[in-house]
């Protein structure tokens, strides 16, 4: 245990590379703060919906010949289903990341030299994975609280232990599977999978909210499904449900199972070498196709798609936008949200894309192309992806909800917004100087992120929100009245609605281009 403590301390100290200026490190307190923020975000959005759903389902009057077992109501059975979903999410999220951690040669090579048992290494390496599954834990808490609070005093007492065992079960199962698979799946593959699965988290989270608001009036079929699911003794979530209602046997079952799986894993781990897998190599060139086109942009796109987080950043905006649109049947709010988030993510994606150029320093500068073009292709990728997503949302909205086709005009300004944000991200990355000091993978600092967020929102406001509101005022009475309440003159309104986006686009394009170019120039003068 002492060994483990030392390792953890070492790990926390190295959580992020030291910043260039200021010289602060991310300390455990910050991590706890992030966790609390996550819990708060999910709590605020999930808890009320869940609470009212449980209340309503519990008081739902069902026919006399319903199949619900005595002592249970619909809320209980719904809880079992939600728990199952959460456990599955936990497993899917945690496992790929754990496998990735276990195949990360750079640190393992060092760790293997330490006089520490492999079982401890396994647990230790899972710290990264646990940190990365913050989001899932943060979802557990509000759901459990909402349900257990309907149970009175017993609920208050049991809620924390219940969260812990429910969380621990998929955790130890992941340990076991990761341990068995380690050395068989390559780091790149598992990183890619884990990136996609984080995205799934978001879908499931939003889905959960949607589902909860939909099942207020369940059909016969749905009730049947709940019953057969929530009473199936082979599904772990059923044990959790029974434990939540005070069944001692199920508590024992859960706890013993967790400990037992953990012990087995520990034993297997001690026999394992944990030597990262190769990448399914074969000695020939058989599968190699040099005829494939591989210009700067293809290369950038390939590298980007293999970066774990990028899938999340790329597709979160469209998923959020689409879900918001389906739920609200409106387009203005979803597009505004989408543009704000996408423009912020544009800058994040630029940082993710630029890091490899600097980790492979100085080779990129020796290429027979303008160094600037290495930036441009990345900016175009980011702009292309988000503009396409924006267009999709608009088109779907037009087809299904009859939105004003004039909104299509905002595609141009949206493209400009993403372009400018991407350039800003590149500028902040370069000006932070972190890439010079071997901290190429370092993301932007908190202060820079805040400034960036503010600037991108301002730009998005000028380029999208202003024309978006104006265009939508043609089809929305309320908006129209509101606008005319501010300025009661059609001509002036039209001029403003055109002038603001044009001016904001023009100046933001000019300023960011200038700033970025001067940073790029500095690179060649001394690195």
């Amino acid at each position, binding site marked *: 245990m002492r060994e483990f403590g030392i390792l953890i301390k070492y790990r926390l100290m190295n959580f992020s590379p030291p910043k260039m200026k200021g010289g602060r490190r991310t300390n455990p307190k910050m991590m706890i703060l992030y966790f609390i923020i996550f819990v708060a975000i999910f709590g605020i959005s999930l808890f009320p919906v869940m609470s009212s759903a449980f209340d309503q389902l519990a008081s739902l009057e069902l026919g006399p010949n319903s199949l619900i077992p005595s002592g249970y109501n619909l809320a209980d059975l719904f809880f079992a289903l939600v728990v199952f979903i959460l456990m599955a999410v936990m497993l899917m999220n945690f496992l790929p990341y754990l496998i990735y951690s276990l195949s990360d040669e750079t640190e393992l090579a060092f760790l293997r030299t330490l006089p520490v048992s492999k079982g401890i290494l396994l647990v230790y390496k899972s710290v990264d994975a646990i940190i990365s599954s913050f989001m899932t834990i943060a979802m557990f808490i509000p759901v459990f609280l909402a349900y257990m609070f309907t149970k009175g005093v017993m609920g208050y007492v049991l809620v924390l232990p219940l969260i812990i065992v429910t969380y621990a079960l998929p955790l130890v199962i992941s340990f076991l599977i990761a341990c068995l698979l380690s050395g068989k799946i390559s780091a790149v593959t598992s990183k890619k999978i884990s990136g996609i699965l984080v995205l799934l988290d978001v879908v499931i989270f939003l889905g959960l909210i949607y589902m909860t608001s939909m099942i207020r009036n369940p059909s016969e079929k749905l009730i049947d499904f709940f019953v057969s699911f929530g009473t199936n003794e082979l599904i772990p979530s059923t044990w959790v449900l029974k434990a939540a209602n005070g069944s001692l046997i199920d508590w024992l079952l859960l706890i013993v199972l967790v400990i037992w799986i953990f012990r087995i894993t520990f034993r297997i781990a001690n026999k394992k070498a944990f030597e990262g897998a190769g990448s399914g190599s074969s000695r020939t060139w058989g599968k190699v196709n040099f005829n494939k086109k591989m210009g700067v942009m293809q290369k950038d796109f390939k590298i980007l798609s293999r970066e774990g987080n990028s899938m999340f950043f790329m597709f979160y905006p469209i998923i959020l936008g689409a879900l918001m649109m389906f739920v609200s049947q409106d387009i203005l709010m979803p597009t505004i949200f989408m543009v704000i988030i996408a423009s912020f993510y544009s800058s994040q994606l630029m940082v993710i894309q630029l890091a490899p150029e600097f980790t492979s*320093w100085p*080779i990129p500068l020796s290429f027979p192309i303008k160094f600037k073009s290495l930036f441009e292709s990345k900016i175009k990728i980011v702009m292309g992806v988000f503009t396409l997503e924006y267009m999709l949302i608009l088109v779907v909205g037009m087809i299904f909800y009859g939105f004003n086709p004039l909104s299509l005009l905002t595609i141009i300004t949206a493209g400009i917004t993403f372009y400018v944000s991407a350039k800003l991200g590149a500028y902040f990355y370069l000006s932070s100087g972190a890439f010079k000091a071997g901290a190429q993978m370092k993301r932007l600092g908190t202060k820079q992120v805040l400034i960036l967020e503010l600037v991108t929102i301002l730009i998005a406001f000028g380029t999208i929100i202003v024309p978006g509101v104006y265009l939508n005022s043609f089809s929305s009475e309320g908006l129209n009245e509101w606008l005319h309440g501010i300025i009661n003159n059609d001509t002036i309104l039209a001029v403003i609605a055109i002038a603001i986006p044009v001016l904001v686009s023009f100046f933001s394009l000019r300023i960011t281009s200038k700033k970025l170019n001067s940073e790029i120039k500095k690179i060649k003068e001394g690195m």
Partner: protein
Amino acid sequence: MSEIIQAENLKKVFGKKVAVEDLNLNVTSGEIYGFLGPNGAGKTTTIKMLTGILMPTEGSVRILDLDMTTDEIKIKRKIAFVPDEPKMYDNLKGWEFANFLMEIYGLDKEETVKRLDDICKAFEIDFLEKYISDYSHGMRQKLMLAVSLMRKPKVLFLDEPTVGLDARSAKILKLWLRKMADENETTIFMTTHVLEIAEKMCDRIGIIKDGKLIAEGTLEELRKKSGKTTDSLEDLFLELTGGAEFGDIIEQLND
């Protein structure tokens, strides 16, 4: 014989640190030029300026009769640079990186792939299908060499090319470079700390110390300059770069 690499009064200042100063170089076609010097002398900085990676604070660089300030891209298309640390895109596979280079250098793929195949056989490179992130230092070094050699550059810059290579690969590299210089008139500019390599391979040697070129010439000329005709390059190098105190250091160590 034409001048392939020409540097005139090169100077590079980082902040207050003068890394290279008053550097004049002339390397002719088909010549292998060895650039020696103690750690921190300014070798890597010089190579970076010659390859257009760093902008000189003062002075000019001409490669293949083209000026670096006006024809940078043209020059880069014709030269190759193997850096001291073989860092490449980790998230690409070896062959993808090679393919990317073929594309941006505008090479004939069929011909280049054939050459790459030969090089891979010679250097026992059988890991092109793996991600570069899974390579060892030596494997990266070999890949970097292979993708540079496959281009048949007119001028080749190598920064400590044998570091990290196993004995067999180092030997093959030496033979390959010699062949390129003799048969294709490739001009080679390399830095090294292995004096034996410089002694056996290089047609001419330059020694840099504290950013200044302190001696230059063939091995014979360097010997003549020091007045001791029997000295090995090692003795000459130590004498020129202030190794005279070495005797004292060794004595102290023995105490």
